[in-house]
């Protein structure tokens, strides 16, 4: 006996099953479309594909052999196939970093919203999303699961990831694509990228790195030399040191004369001191002698006093022959002698003080001259140092300038062996985001939702053993089954 349940499934049965789960199908499809809409308008970032084309023209050394070009060119299809290094240069850190720096792509600040509720909602969403992203990133960094990168490093990495290239087959043309998150200025970014790439590749291929190095060194040496020369000129202008050696000689002569005068003055002062000491010694003696204090100076005040003392001593010597020492004339002679001697001592004291003052003045003048000489020595030393600096800088500049010229000549020689890159098609801002259009995404989501719903129906129907129709019950029971529909 055949199983009464096993029977051909008709289109009506399928439709019945489908409409039995209609609400489930509708729910799944709506959820799918709703999720797709949330993703597209909330999380999905539009990507703009900006493209350009460059052609790498090989240098003479890289050209195909003449024999191939002349005879078998159509068959051999010889072309320059060396795009790998070019792409590596294009994606080099220096090139991408220069683009990032020029366009400030590492500035990830969110611009303020435009007027309008929608813009403010979108701005608030971006700020919230940024907060969540930063928080998660900081947590990952804190627990050691992620390394902290600078904004510039992140921007360079993102720009490198956004770059897609493809080389057209059997040609030297390279398609460059950059998938950027913004439409405006995307063309400018790629064009600048290409310009940086061209500049950098020339530096690499022509060895311009060395030339640039020596150029920079020459420029720096020249600036250094100019600064040294300016310093020397300023120094000379400030201190008027046209001939420091002559000035030193003049000063030395002046010092010699001043020191000679000082020495003479000192000798004179010592002579006055000696005479004053002799006068004072004789003054304290009970019978002072004139000869001890004799002096060749006759025409001065001291000379006249000494002459008077000499006369008094002669007169006293004569009185000794006639008078007693205690006589009035003798006593008078001695009193006059002592008064004159006191006058001489006072005069000598005055002269001694004058001499000592003169010695002090001359010593001070000599010290001032020595100080001037020291200053001149210092200035001369500074001037010598500045002149030495100028000389050293001049030597360095000459050396570096020579090497720079040699490097330039070397780069010029190499230039003949380096291929050229020509921009076949510049990048322009794309008009629409790349990738699948939203309507197609929604279509795919609809189909996916229907497929999920179909899977759901299949699974639900597989496990559903219920009896929903009289036909099914009649097949199983083998008898008549009447239908009592739901009450209206």
């Amino acid at each position: 006996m055949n199983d009464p349940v096993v029977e051909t499934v008709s289109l009506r049965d399928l439709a019945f099953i489908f409409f039995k789960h209609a609400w489930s199908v509708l729910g799944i499809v709506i959820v799918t479309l709703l999720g797709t809409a949330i993703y597209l308008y909330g999380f999905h970032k539009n990507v703009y594909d900006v493209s350009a084309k460059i052609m790498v023209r090989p240098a003479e050394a890289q050209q195909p052999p003449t024999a191939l070009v002349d005879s078998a060119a159509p068959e051999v299809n010889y072309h320059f196939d060396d795009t790998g290094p070019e792409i590596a240069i294009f994606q080099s850190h220096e090139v991408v970093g220069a683009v990032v720096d020029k366009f400030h792509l590492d500035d990830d600040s969110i611009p303020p919203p435009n007027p309008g509720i929608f813009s403010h909602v979108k701005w608030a969403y971006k700020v919230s999303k940024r907060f969540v992203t930063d928080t998660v990133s900081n947590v990952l960094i804190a627990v050691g699961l992620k390394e902290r990168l600078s904004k510039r490093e992140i921007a360079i990495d993102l720009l490198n990831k956004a770059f897609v290239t493809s080389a057209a087959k059997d040609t030297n043309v390279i398609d460059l694509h950059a998938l950027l998150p913004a439409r405006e200025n995307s063309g400018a970014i790629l064009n600048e990228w290409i310009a940086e790439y061209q500049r950098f590749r020339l530096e690499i291929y022509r060895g311009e790195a060395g030339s640039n190095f020596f150029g920079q060194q020459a420029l720096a040496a020249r600036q250094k030399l100019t600064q040294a020369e300016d310093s020397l000129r300023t120094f000379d202008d400030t201190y008027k040191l046209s001939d420091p050696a002559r000035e030193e000689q003049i000063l030395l002569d002046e010092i010699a004369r001043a020191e000679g005068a000082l020495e003479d003055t000192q000798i004179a002062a010592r002579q006055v001191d000696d005479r004053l000491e002799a006068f004072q010694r004789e003054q304290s003696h009970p019978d002072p002698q004139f000869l001890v204090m004799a002096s060749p100076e006759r025409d001065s005040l001291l000379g006249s006093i000494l002459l008077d003392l000499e006369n008094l001593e002669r007169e006293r010597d004569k009185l000794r022959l006639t008078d007693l020492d205690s006589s009035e004339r003798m006593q008078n002679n001695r009193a006059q002698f002592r008064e004159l001697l006191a006058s001489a001592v006072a005069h000598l004291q005055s002269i001694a003080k004058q001499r000592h003052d003169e010695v002090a003045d001359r010593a001070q003048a000599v010290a001032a001259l020595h100080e001037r000489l020291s200053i001149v020595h210092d200035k001369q030393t500074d001037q010598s140092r500045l002149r030495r600096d100028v000389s050293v800088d001049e030597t360095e500049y000459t050396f570096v300038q020579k090497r720079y010229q040699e490097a330039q000549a070397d780069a010029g020689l190499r230039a003949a062996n380096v291929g050229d890159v020509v921009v076949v098609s510049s990048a322009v801002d794309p008009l629409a985001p790349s990738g699948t259009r939203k309507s197609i995404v929604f279509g795919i989501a609809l189909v996916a939702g229907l497929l999920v719903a179909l899977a759901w129906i299949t699974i639900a129907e597989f496990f559903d053993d219920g009896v929903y129709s009289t036909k099914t019950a009649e097949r199983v029971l083998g008898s008549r089954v009447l239908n009592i529909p739901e009450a209206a």
Partner: protein
Amino acid sequence: MTTMTLPTAAAGAVTVDADERYKDLALWICENFSVHQHREIALTAPVFDAELLEIGRQIAASLAAISSQRVILVNLDERLDPAPARARLTIQDALTVLSDDRPPMPLTACSAFDAVSSSSLKLASDQLLDRFDFVVWVLPPLLEGLRGVVAARVIGHVCLALRSGDSTIGQLKRIREIATEEQFEITTSVLRETRRYLPRWVDRWLPAR
């Protein structure tokens, strides 16, 4: 809507609003049972169905309405009777009540929980058939205990009350096996609460079976 009055064990009146949906079933029963000379309908379900007594009432009311015959509804499932046990009317009580001088009513109902054994049910059946043109039995479920199966075997044929979605193919297969083993017939079934899943335009557009 046909309104019928059913005497109960307490001699009260029970109002049944006859549902037009059961009219076709009553007509079918009248046509087919007369061929087989069946005057009893044993209404049962695979598992407990709280609405089974109401279905029995509707079938009895429809039979009484369209055939103008005397119909009695006998409930054998005590779970379906909300009346307290002391107020329930046994089948003998019903026969006693019905033997009064009053002319029998077109539709009568009673509970007969005592008539669960084969002999007593057979005796009651014979006695009821003497007084009524149709006897509508409401049996306990076939897949929950033996009382329903015993009653079905005594009566010899059953009418299954199925509920769309709740009754399963497995239950029906098991009932068919039991019917074969216990030698009773599944004369007909009713599938209730079937929903019209297919929209009318789809129903019209799809080819008929």
